[in-house]
Structure formats: C-alpha cells, structure tokens
C-alpha cells in the first residue's frame, strides 16, 4: 500500500506529532506500507512533489512545532479554476492516480477539508485530520493546535496584567480568530480578562465603556480586554468583510481592536495600549495535551486507513476518538454557541462581552 501525508494551510503545534503517529502506527502494524511525505501541502500534490519517508523521519518530532513536510495555502475556490487547459483539482487527481496512492492523509483546517472532500468526490481515498488553532472544525470537540495556542494566548494575557496594573492602563490583547471566538474566549477566561469580545457576539462601544467604568469606579485602575481578530461592532454587523476592512482603512486603523482602543481612549479617558501576539500563537512546541491528542488522532486515522475507511475525518467527541464523513464537515464552521456553558460561567463571574 502507498500512502501520502500532507499538511496544508496555516501551521500549528501538533502537526509533527500527528505525522509521527500516522507513521509509527503504519510501520508497526503494516510494515510493508510505503509512506510518502507530500511537500508543502496541496502544492506538492499539484506539482507531484513527494518523498519517501522512513522510520527515522518519525523520530524526535513529537515535541517539535511546525511541520517537517512544509505547508502552503491553496484556496479551495481556486482548485477548479481553469489554468492552462486543466485545473489544480485535475492535476492532483492525476498525480494521485499516476503515483498509485492508496490513501492520502490531509492534515488541515476547514479549507483543507473542503478540498479533501473534493478529492474524495473525484475518487481519491482521503482521510482528514482536524488541525487549527481556531478550534472551528465542525464535528470535533477540539482540534489539535488549539490547546497549544490557548496556552500561549493565556500567557500573553497573564503577562499583560502586571504592566497594565503598574501603569493603570487598559490593555487590549488581540487574539487570533477571524471567524470564531473559541481561542479568545478560553484565553480570556484563563488569563483573567475583564472583557472578552468575540465574533459571535457583536459588541457595542457604549457597553464596553460601561464595563470599563464599572471596574474603575470599583477601585480597579486597569483593565484587560481580550479581543478576537474578527470581533464585530454591532454597528457593522450587517457589513460584508470588505466593507468592514474599508471602514478600518478610512480611519487608518489596522483592525477593530485599534478602533476600539482609540474610541475608549477618547471617550472613557483612560490610557490604552494594543498588544498583538500574532503568529507567536501558532509557534513553538505543542503542549502536552496537543501531543496526546495528536498521537491519538494520528494513530486512529492510520487504523481507519488499514480498515479501508475513507472519505472521513478523525475527531474527538466526548473524550473518544471517532470519525465523521468529510461531506458532513466540509464547509461548516463550529461557532461558539450563544448558550455556551463557558460564556454563561464567564458572565456569571462578571466578565463583560460588550453586549
């Protein structure tokens, strides 16, 4: 049997742990299997860039961040556009068949899963694995990479406390999460943020101001506000993404966090600063939780392959590793539910969501 492994989209801690688990499981349980690494994600499958992997490749990478296979972003929308008489999808399918793959493991986020579903629909045997620091893949309680990013984002907020308190400032910490607020919500609570703003709950500037003033009047000279990249002003809730970007540009603001910080500074009369941890959240070594999760997911996925189960993606549900059909997952986003217990707990301890 010939299998390929590719890592696609944004990198995150845990990718190498999954690669290791797949490799070791196959070597231990099906030693005749040939394992190939596909370079730089779908770009490698399009261009036919594969390399044979051996047992040595899977050693010493459990606790290494990033991906040993490289990665790239190849948007789903571009996969079926005509290009020199063919399409990227056709090239991938052709390479899959020409090389004689029996299965490809695709480690990636929502977009990767959509392309994986496309490949499966065209006859390729695909098994997906849910990778993202955003934790927004449908059908799984957690994605690998999320907890590592959570640890990092939480530490950022932790560290900001001392400087915020020392200077009596209101600090806005912008956390990754363009569409969903899982990382911001969890890091905000874990880091002790006073206000948490996530895309799922549009926020009102006046409500944020009220929450800040309540704390100040209560004797707290500083505030920590965790803001998701994709947080939305209630006045812009009906805007399209381009319209919001335009609104920011016209005011010379990079993100809504800058807009919020400036408004608070002007209207609440407190000193503000914006902190953007950015890609630090993706970097570094995977946490213990992510190493464990990645190992479980990777091993399970390898067994799915040996059992002949394709067109599925591994998942963790209620603590158990299982799988979902790719067609059930592709194109869907797991948003933070409005009635989430986590949000309820946050509100009950006095955290404001700006609504």
């Amino acid at each position, binding site marked *: 049997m010939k299998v390929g492994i590719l890592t696609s989209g944004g990198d995150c801690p845990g990718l190498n742990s999954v690669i290791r688990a797949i490799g070791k499981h196959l070597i231990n349980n099906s030693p005749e299997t040939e394992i190939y690494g596909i370079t730089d994600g779908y770009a490698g499958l399009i261009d036919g860039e594969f390399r044979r992997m051996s047992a040595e490749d899977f050693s010493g990478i459990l606790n290494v961040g990033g991906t040993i296979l490289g990665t790239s972003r190849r948007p789903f929308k571009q996969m*079926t556009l005509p290009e020199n008489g063919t399409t990227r*999808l056709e090239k991938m399918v052709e390479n899959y068949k020409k090389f004689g793959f029996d299965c490809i493991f695709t480690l990636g986020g929502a977009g990767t899963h959509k392309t994986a579903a496309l490949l499966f*629909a*065209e*006859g390729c045997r695909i098994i997906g694995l849910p990778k993202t620091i955003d934790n927004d893949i449908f059908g799984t309680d957690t994605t690998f990479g999320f907890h590592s990013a959570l640890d990092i984002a939480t530490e950022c907020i932790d560290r900001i406390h001392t400087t915020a308190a020392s200077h009596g400032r209101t600090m806005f910490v912008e956390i990754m999460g363009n569409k969903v607020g899982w990382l911001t919500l969890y890091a905000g609570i874990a880091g002790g943020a006073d206000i948490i703003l996530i895309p799922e709950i549009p926020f009102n500037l006046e409500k944020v101001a009220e929450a800040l003033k309540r704390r100040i009047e209560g004797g707290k000279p500083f505030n920590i506000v965790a803001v998701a990249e994709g947080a939305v002003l209630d006045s812009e809730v009906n805007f399209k993404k381009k319209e919001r970007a335009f609104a920011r540009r016209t005011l010379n603001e990079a993100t809504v966090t800058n807009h919020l910080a400036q408004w608070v500074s002007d209207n609440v009369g407190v000193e503000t600063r914006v902190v953007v941890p950015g890609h630090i959240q993706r970097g570094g070594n995977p946490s213990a939780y992510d190493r464990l999760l990645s190992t479980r997911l990777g091993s399970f996925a390898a067994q799915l392959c040996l059992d002949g189960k394709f067109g*599925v993606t591994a998942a963790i549900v209620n603590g158990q590793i299982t799988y979902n*059909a790719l*067609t*059930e997952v592709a*194109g869907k986003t797991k948003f933070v539910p409005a009635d989430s217990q986590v949000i309820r707990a946050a509100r009950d301890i006095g955290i404001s969501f700006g609504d």
Partner: protein
Amino acid sequence: MKYSVIDISSSSLSFIVADVDGGSAEVIFKDRITLSLTQYMEGKSLSARGTEKLISAINAAKQKCTALGVEKAYLIATAALRQIDNFGEVHDAAAQATGMMIKLIDGKAEGRFDLMANSGYATYDRAVLIDIGGASIEICDFADPSEEGTKFLKFGIFDLNRKFVDDIQPTEDEAKKIKKYVKKKLAEAELPKDGAYSTVVLVGATNNAVYDVYADYAKTEGEEKRIDIKQFKKLSAHLTGDPGRSALVLKSAPERIYMLTTAAVVLNAIFKRFRPENVVVSDRGVKEGYLRFILENGEGEEYNFEGEPHEKSQPAPVKRGRKPTGKKPKSETRPDGAPKRKYVRKKKQDESVAGKEQSAPENADVQTEGDAVDGAKE
C-alpha cells in the same frame, strides 16, 4: 396542538413542525440535519458510529421540537434504514437512547404519502409525480392516484450506483450505461411518453437536492422551483464529465455526493421519455403526507413530549415494514373524538376544490379540508 414528523433518509434527518387544529394542519417550521448514513456503513450494516450519529441527530431534532412546544412526534424512515441488515439493533439502540420508535415506510406507502402531500397538483393538466429514492423510483399519475396509476420501478439510486458506478460519482461512460438501463426500464414499465404528461412534479429529498444544484448552476431566481429541461440537460452533462462538477455538488448538497449525479442522469432519461412542458419541484413529501395520514387515521407510533416518553423504558419490539393498512379503521372516530373523514375515489376534478387546491402548492400547508384523494384508505 403541535405535531412533528421526523424523517430519516440516507443523507439527512429532516423534520416538520405543524400546528394542528382539529383535522387541519399548517406546517410552521422545517429543518434538516446532515446525516450521511451511507458513509457509516460497514457492508450492509450501519456501524456503531453511524448509530451514534443517528441517535445524535434524533436527539437534536427532539430538542428543537421541545423548544417549539411540540406535543407529539412521529419518527419515520424509508429506504436508508429499510435496507440495512442490522435494523433491529439500530432501532433498539435508538429507541433506548431517544425514547422514539422508528417506523419504516415502504416504497408504496411513500408514494401514497407523496401524493397526499401534493394533492394540490392534481388540478394541473396531465400532471405526474416523481420521487427518486435510494431503493425505488415512484411515478404517480395525478389523474389516477390509485395503485394502478402508480408505477414503482424496483430500483433506486443505491441500486444503480452498486451496479454501474465504481467510484463516488459516475464517469461519462457509467452515466451512459445508467441512462440506457433506465430508458429500458421505463419502456418495460410501459410508461406513457412524448407529451403524455404536461407537468412533472418532482418530490423528495433527492429531487430537491438536485434542484438546489440546478438552481446554482442555472443561476435561477424566484420563489417557485421550476426546471428548464434544456438547462437541465446541460447540468447533467456537466455533472458527468466536467471538472468543477464535484465542487458544484459539494457546495449545494455535499451529503448527496453519492447520489446526485446518478439522480440527474435518471431524471434526464425520464424527461426524455415524457417530454413534459413544465417541471416543478415541490418541497412537500412524505412527512406532510404522513402527518395527514396520522390525523385522518389516528394511527402511528407517536412520541409524547408531555410526561414520560412513550415506551421509553422497555426494549422496543422491532416493528418492521408496518405499512399503512389501508383497511377501514375499527373506530369511526379519531383519538380526539372527532369523526374520521370518509373518502371518495376522485373521478373528476372538483371545481369547488380546484380554486383552493390551486393555492395549496404555494405554501407549506397540509390541508385536509375538501380533499378527496384516496390513498391511505382503500
């Protein structure tokens, strides 16, 4: 009082919630939960994971029903569960976990319920109803809604895929073989052709999914779901050969990736035989028809949301293939005490009903007043 009918098919669990008042019902809510049961099969049995997903979907529907104040619900399933070898185990597990009993509906009953739900189209000139299912294709003449007027082709999408399709979707060659086979079967069934039917009414989840893909492909607008046959032919060709075909299906109906192209090929063959002037798609079907049947017959394995769930604590006896009896009911009254309706075989279009019926397809009401379709009771 609010009733719900929940339907398990191969690619989704869909349900309606209706406000029931006396003998009439008005559908006030519809929803669908993606459930690709085909992907959770192990041979001819539903896997443990598939059973988990099914239970989860049923519970999600129940939760929604509770939130909407539903008092009685009915859980039905058609070919998707009819064909699995381990239905008994799946049924017991689902009953244990949800308190709901799954009632299997056979192809003929499906046909009857489809007709009941779409009786408004009976006033259309030379109209025929078509439902493409996993295990059968039903073709019902509105002018003769009896058993004689209803043809069942004893194969469906699952059968065609098993016979002709190697991968997930048919290739161009495989599609040609499917078309030839269907053409032959339509001729063997001695179905009318070449304009015998002026209007084709497509019903069922698969046909509706085909329409969604068609609407995207043809960029149609407007509330009424109509299909232009020439455009449909182009879509069918696209689905069987062009790059981008999978992306089109995955965009609008990802859970039907296994069925959609084959269904389009079948429909093409049917349109070619019938050469209708109009093709419309109805989003009313088995659920609405079954609800009407329940209201008129007082039968059905209901789940009561008030108090303890019906038969929840007992291992449920497997009740397979229980068809709507069509027998005269023992009681002349319904459980709520109202007299049951009597049926008259419809010979001619009733002018006084026509006006009302004309409007029926425009909205999602299940209307029983003034209908005189024999279907459930013979």
